[in-house]
Each structure stands twice: as C-alpha cells, then as structure tokens.
C-alpha cells in the first residue's frame, strides 16, 4: 500500500476582512464601528499525494493556491480540517519536519548580496544540520545539474539574474528535501530561463523521487511537468486528476491547424463557418475549431477543397480548457 506523503482532509481557511464604505464618511464611520465579513480563502479542500508525484495546482489569482501551500508549509493555521505532510502536522513547525521540505516562492531572495553563494549554502547547511558528506554530495549534484560549478565562489551581486536564480535554488535545496512546494517558480523569468527551470524541476523529481507541488499561472509549466493537476477556484477544488483526463472530458473541440499555400477567396472564407469556428486566420496560417467527433471528416474535406499545404489535428489549448472549467461547466 502506498502511504500518502501529503494528506489533506477538509481543509478550510477563513479570514475576517474589515469592510469599509467608500469615501471620507465611510472612513470615519469605520473608526467607530468596524464591520467584518468572512473571506473563504480555502473551503473544504481534500486530496492525497503519494511519494514522487509532481502535482500542479492551477487556478486564477486569489483561488487559494498560495494559502493551501502556506498551510502545508506550516505558515498558517487552518480554520478547519486535517493536514499531514510526511507524517507531521505542518503548523507545529517541528524541526524534524522542516528539515525535510522546502518552500520556494517565486523570486524571493535569501542569498547574501556581498558574499559568494557558497557562504549562504554553508549557512543553510548549519541551519538544517546537514552532515558534511551529504552536503558535499548534494552541492556537487545540484551545481552540475544547474551548470554553475565555477560560480560558487563568486559574489552574488556579480552574477547574472539567471545565475542568481540557480544559486537561490541550490540554497533552497541544499538539504535535499523530499517534499518541495514551488510557488510560481517561473514567474518573471524569460523563456529560456523558464525552460531551464522546468528541466531542473523534472530532473530533481526523477533523481531524488521528490514529491512536488507546483503552483503556476503558466500552462506550459503544467503541461510539461505535471501528470496530475488540481484545479482550485474561489477556495474550492474543481478538479483533481490526470491532465489527459481533463483534456478529454472538457475539450469537446479539436483544433485543425493549417498552413495554406494560396490566399482564400471570399466564398471559401464564408464556407469555413459551416465547417467550424475560425479561431485564427492570418495567411498562411489558419486555425479552425471543430467538434471532436467531426474532426477527421472536416479535415478530409478541407484537404480536398482548400489550398492546404499542411494540416495538424491538435487538442484545444489547455488554457481554453481550464478557462471553461472556471466558467462553471459541469465537472461530472
């Protein structure tokens, strides 16, 4: 039997937020009589995650993703519910628990600016009480993976943004945590750095069999890394399952992506709408959205009667699918 590493049952986190009427009169009134209303940041969320899984949490801003991660990290006490990570209750903040996980939040820095990154690693080694041999090994593995072996003794402020980001990662992982909570790991990075970050996360997951939860706005992060996703919106869990499943269930459309070798005349353009929805037409590119069942038939028709040089049948963009989930289509 596979014991779950992360177990969440009925997690809820409510906040009381002070409500103020607009304007000066409202401000004065609120000095005397404060009205509060409840915000349900997280409402009755449950899930189990097993060792080695790489799970994506997706949802719009304010959905409750970060609040959930913070609760799993022990930063917040829940209003209701039970949480267990590696057999510990996170908010007790037991050192034995803290030594086994890492929370990495977007672009927050913890390295000392004026000193070589190595000094920060040594500090973390001491904080996490990592045995010397393991420290050397992890340092060497991580710096190889990230290709920064020669930069360890260089002052952090002399490094480029990308190099600094890699050092931050090493500092955060020098204690070889088994559980990683990554909050928006690729935010603010350029395309190349994003890809490198994703490759690293994948490699870390495989090499250390680490259990990873990642939150992101970027569908590419999720598409590339996560087999399983959990969709959260307005504090509730909307979907929990394989990425493929959500694509199949919700995407009742497929995309026909074409390269044309001749511009279309007006009659042809008008006829297109009979075949499906035109998602994009910018010669020579044409993307048509058609119902799943018809995709092969329509594709054949297009190849026959239209100047199509190349045609691909693709799933709907994940972004569109997820947007449909958020706008309340049936989760059944």
């Amino acid at each position, binding site marked *: 039997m596979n014991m779950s590493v992360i177990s969440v049952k009925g997690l809820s986190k409510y906040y009381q937020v002070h409500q103020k009427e607009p304007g000066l009169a409202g401000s004065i009134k609120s000095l005397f009589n404060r009205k509060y209303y409840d915000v349900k940041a997280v409402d009755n969320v449950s899930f189990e995650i097993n060792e080695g899984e790489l799970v994506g949490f997706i949802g719009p801003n304010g959905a409750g993703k970060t609040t959930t991660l913070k609760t799993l990290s022990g*930063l917040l006490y829940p209003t209701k519910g039970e949480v267990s990570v590696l057999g510990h209750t996170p908010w007790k903040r037991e050192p034995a628990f803290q030594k086994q996980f890492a*929370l990495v939040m977007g672009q927050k820095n913890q390295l000392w600016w004026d000193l070589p990154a190595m000094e920060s690693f040594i500090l973390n080694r*001491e904080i996490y009480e990592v045995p010397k041999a393991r420290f050397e090994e992890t340092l060497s593995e991580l710096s190889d993976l990230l290709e920064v072996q020669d930069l360890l003794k260089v002052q952090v402020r002399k490094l480029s943004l990308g190099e600094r980001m890699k050092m931050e990662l090493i500092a955060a992982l020098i204690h070889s945590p088994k559980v990683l909570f990554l909050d928006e790991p690729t935010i603010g990075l350029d395309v190349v750095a994003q890809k490198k970050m994703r490759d690293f996360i994948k490699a870390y997951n495989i090499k250390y069999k680490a259990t990873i939860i990642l939150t992101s706005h970027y569908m590419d992060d999720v598409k590339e890394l996560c087999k399983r996703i959990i969709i959260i919106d307005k504090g509730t869990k909307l979907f929990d399952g394989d990425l493929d499943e959500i694509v199949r269930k919700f995407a009742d459309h497929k995309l026909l992506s074409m390269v044309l070798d001749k511009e279309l005349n007006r009659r042809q353009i008008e006829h297109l709408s009979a075949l499906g929805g035109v998602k994009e037409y910018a010669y020579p590119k044409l993307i048509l959205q058609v119902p799943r069942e018809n995709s092969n038939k329509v594709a054949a028709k297009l190849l026959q009667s239209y100047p199509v040089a190349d045609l691909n049948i693709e799933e709907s963009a994940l972004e569109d699918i997820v947007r449909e989930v958020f706008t309340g289509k049936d989760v059944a």
Partner: protein
Amino acid sequence: MKRYLNLYSIFFKNSLIRMMENRFDFLFRAIPTTLSLCINLLVISFIFSKINAVSGWNKEELFLLLGTYNIVWGIFFGLFIQNMAKINSYISRGDLDLFLTKPINSQFYISIVNPIDFGEAATLILGLILVTRGVSILNIDLNLIQVVTYVMIILSAVTLAYSLWFITMTFSFWIGRVYGLHEAFISFFEINKYPSDIFNGLIKNVFVYFLPLGVMVTFPTKFLLGKLDPILMIWGIVSGFGFLYISHLFWNFSLERYSSASS
C-alpha cells in the same frame, strides 16, 4: 545551544567579510561618530561652566556617564541595528515566511540575519576611552572583580536594550506598517544620556522599574562611582534577562496570531 553558537559564529564571520569589502564605509562612519561625541562633551562642559552639579552629578561624572552610554550604544547598535530596522518590513511584506519555514528559532534568526554594523566600533572605542579617562581622573580604584562586574552589568544593559527594542518591533504584528516605529525607539533610548536622577518620583520609578531604560546606562556608571545600591544592581542584571524572556513570550504569542500577507 552549541548549534546556536556555531550559527552565530557564521553570521559573525560573514559580517566581518562584508565589512572588509566595505573598508571605506567603516572609516567614514568614524567621523560623524567622533563629531557627535565632541558635541555632547561640549554641551556638558557648557552646562558646567554655569553650574556645579546636576542632580548630584558633577562634570566628570557626567563624562563618565556619556562614556558608558557610548559603550552600551556601540555594542547594542552595532550588533542589532541592521536587523531591528527591518523587522517591521519583514512582517508587513510577508518576508517573514522565509524564516518561519526553517528549523531555527525565528527570533534568533531575525535578530542576527543582517550583518553587524562594525561602524559602531568607533562609538565603542570612544566610549572606552572616555570611561578609562574618567576612572583615572576621578581616582576610582578598580579591582578585577569590579571590572568583570562592570562588564556584566554592561552586557545585561545591552540585553535589556535589545529586548525592549525587540518588543517594540514585535508590535508590528498588531499595528501593521508603522513608519518611524524604530526611530521612535532610538529617540527614547537617548534619554539614557542623562542620569535617571534628573527625574523625580513617579517618572523616575517608571524609568527604573517599569520600562527600565534608566537602568541601562545610569546603573553601570553608578557602579563605577561606588554609588550603586547592591539590590538595584541585581535588579539591573535580572531585568535584562527578564525582559529577554518577555520578548520571547511576546514574539511567540504574536506569531501564533500572525497570518502572513497574501501574495
């Protein structure tokens, strides 16, 4: 305990490295410090050109007080100012989260994570000079035990100053972003330039027993002058550790109620 000593030595070493990177900064800091001290000395001299004593303190005794003030200030500020100043912003911006997930006491970490300000060494050295001069001019005989006791009283004064400042900064949890909270504390601290004897009755008792600012500089000086009641001396030392404990309780209590700023 040993682990925290190790950790502290790492922070200390890193502060040293950083200071050596910024050598000129250290030299420049010595200038305003010396100037400020000279101004204080001039003010005292001026006052004493008109009168002979203030609340039972003569000129040389006040110089001795000023010297002790600089010693306490130099140690206390040097060790902690870079850290205390940032607590308010760590709390209000949610940066505290990075500290709380680590297996290290958060009060300890937040108090030493930023480098030691070695510029304050100038203050400390000037203070030591002034005290040494004062002890010789006033013909005070000190044996080894008394010197050690003086050092201990100074250290508990530093502990007390740290604890009071830390408690003040912990209020950030309750009242949010407060500009100048930490400047207010510094202004308050400057009361120590004057012997607590200048206050009467109720105010004096507040400053000695309740909010023991008065203890920090006046007591060690009185000890050198042989005028410190032994019971008060014990209060001086105890209050340092007592308030440290209170700061620890208050910090933990505030953390419990803390919900981090949302992203």
